[in-house]
């Protein structure tokens, strides 16, 4: 979709909906967001192939909720996203589910969501595509890997959300089971440009538990993900049949003070690949990553953010030298890790409006999917940087 076409669509949508505001006590409610930005990755194809300044930073979304009664609701959100090379450009049905709320007992609630739901398991995962809910335009890639956005964001299946509130703090438990459809973009993001077959996610099984102190100063959580993938090769294909098993273990901690806040998420992954390059090919490795992030409100409308993000694809090859040796030098060692320092500024000039800008300095290319091969030479150098600026409005 062309730049002006997508914006005409967004503005028409906004104008049309603003003409029909939902009344306060209505069973139907809707909200949305519009954002446009500009970004550039220098010495890397993270945003664009040629490293030029790119306006491919558009996020539009509209959601609705219809409460049938106190215990049943239909909920949905559609988005249009364009992040350049970061994820697949286009419209998506972000979520569409039936929200069934069981009767409350002893300050505890249980919701059962059936359909396409958003994963609530990490700090930002439930709203990672909603620009005004993010601390930075580009989230820490160790956990919020953009190329894998659609699979990580949600699933088609069932989600249980338990919430218990008490004077001494609140406790939240989420459990989900489902699978995500895999697009050609996702297949190539995981397996490379030359994959001709179909990749399927067999299942994604996730669990998370969060505790928040009574003062709401602390939020501490743990989460677990278990997922299997199967690759069915095409009749003529670079790859043979393959399977991948992935487990993710994550710890999330956030601290909130009046003018500053701190957040960190640490993750370890365990991956077993069988097949792919050859029927007897097998990889069994553990990677790890995480980020620390500090935000400070320098004035009521201004917030500065700084973060350090780190990802290692193989804990036993932290500098990527084994990776380079195994591929005969075709894949440079710096594709085995990625370390990023970022600084950003948020400005809220008016209610529901935000301007956000940031700069990232990156060492390594472990979170890029454009892997070097005999027929592909990506642009990303060992040290690269990117910046982005975005204006957003939400209602």
């Amino acid at each position, binding site marked *: 979709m062309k730049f002006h076409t997508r914006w005409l669509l967004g503005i028409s949508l906004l104008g049309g909906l603003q003409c029909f505001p939902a009344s*306060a006590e209505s069973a139907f409610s809707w909200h949305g967001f519009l954002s446009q930005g500009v970004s550039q990755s220098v010495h890397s194809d993270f945003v664009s192939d040629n490293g030029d300044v790119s306006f491919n930073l558009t996020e539009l979304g509209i959601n609705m909720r219809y409460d049938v009664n106190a215990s049943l609701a239909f909920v949905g959100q559609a988005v249009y996203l364009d992040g350049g090379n970061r994820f697949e450009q286009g419209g998506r049905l972000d979520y569409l589910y039936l929200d069934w709320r069981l009767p409350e007992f002893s*300050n505890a609630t249980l919701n059962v969501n059936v359909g396409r739901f958003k994963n609530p398991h990490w700090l930002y995962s439930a*709203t990672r595509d909603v620009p005004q809910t993010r601390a930075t335009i580009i989230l820490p890639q160790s956990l919020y890997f953009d190329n894998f956005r659609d699979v990580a964001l949600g699933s088609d299946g069932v989600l249980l*959300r338990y919430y218990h*509130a008490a004077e001494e703090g609140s406790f939240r438990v989420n459990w989900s089971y489902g699978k995500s459809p895999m697009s050609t973009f996702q297949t190539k993001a995981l397996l490379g440009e030359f994959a001709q077959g179909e990749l399927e996610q067999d299942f994604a099984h996730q669990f998370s538990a969060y505790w928040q102190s009574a003062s709401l100063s602390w939020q501490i959580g743990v989460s677990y993900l278990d997922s299997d993938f199967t690759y069915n090769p095409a009749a003529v294909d670079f790859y043979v049949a393959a399977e991948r098993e992935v487990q993710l273990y994550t710890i999330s901690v956030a601290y909130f003070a*009046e003018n500053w806040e701190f957040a960190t998420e640490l993750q370890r992954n365990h991956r077993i690949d069988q097949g792919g390059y050859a029927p007897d090919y097998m990889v069994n490795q553990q990677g790890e990553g995480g980020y620390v992030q500090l935000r400070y409100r320098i004035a009521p409308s201004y917030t500065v953010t700084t973060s350090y993000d780190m990802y290692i694809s193989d804990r036993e090859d932290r500098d990527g030298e084994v990776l380079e040796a195994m591929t005969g030098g075709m894949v440079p060692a710096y594709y085995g890790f990625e370390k990023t320092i970022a600084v950003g500024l948020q400005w809220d000039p008016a209610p529901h409006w935000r301007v956000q800008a940031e700069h990232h300095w990156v060492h390594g290319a472990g979170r890029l999917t454009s892997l070097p091969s005999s027929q592909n030479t990506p642009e990303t150098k060992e040290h690269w940087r990117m910046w982005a600026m975005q204006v957003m409005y939400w209602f």
Partner: protein
Amino acid sequence: MSALSKIGFCFCNKCFSIRVIAVCLLLCVCLPVKAIESTVIINNGVEKRQFSRTDIRNIFSARTQYWSDGAKITVYVLDAQTEAHKDFCREMLKMFPYQLERMWNQITYSGQGERPQTVATEAELIEAVKNTPGAIGYAYHTSALENVREVAIP
């Protein structure tokens, strides 16, 4: 001559008075300004009588969206930048206004519920609570309250 006088501290009446005034001014700046005391108000038709602080927090953070009789809760608040809203968040909900805003955004944009309605003035807020079945809000000029019920929080 005392040790303090030796290092430049004069204890004549004039200097002492100036220091006392300076200390008082400093204390005025450093001590917190008294918070705006607000009270939770609900529509007269709401049946629930007893509220804990957890109940109030769950309602204003949009986690509880229906009364126990199945009626929809409509929450009214003032703009997030007003002192009344900031004080309500700190004193009643025991959280910072930006935390509340985050919770609303998370709940709203992941489809889990509806954020509160924002109104411009306290008079509008009281009027909205009065006229909307199942509504809840807050007020700080309690003498102006008519046809809404004040909620006592233990």
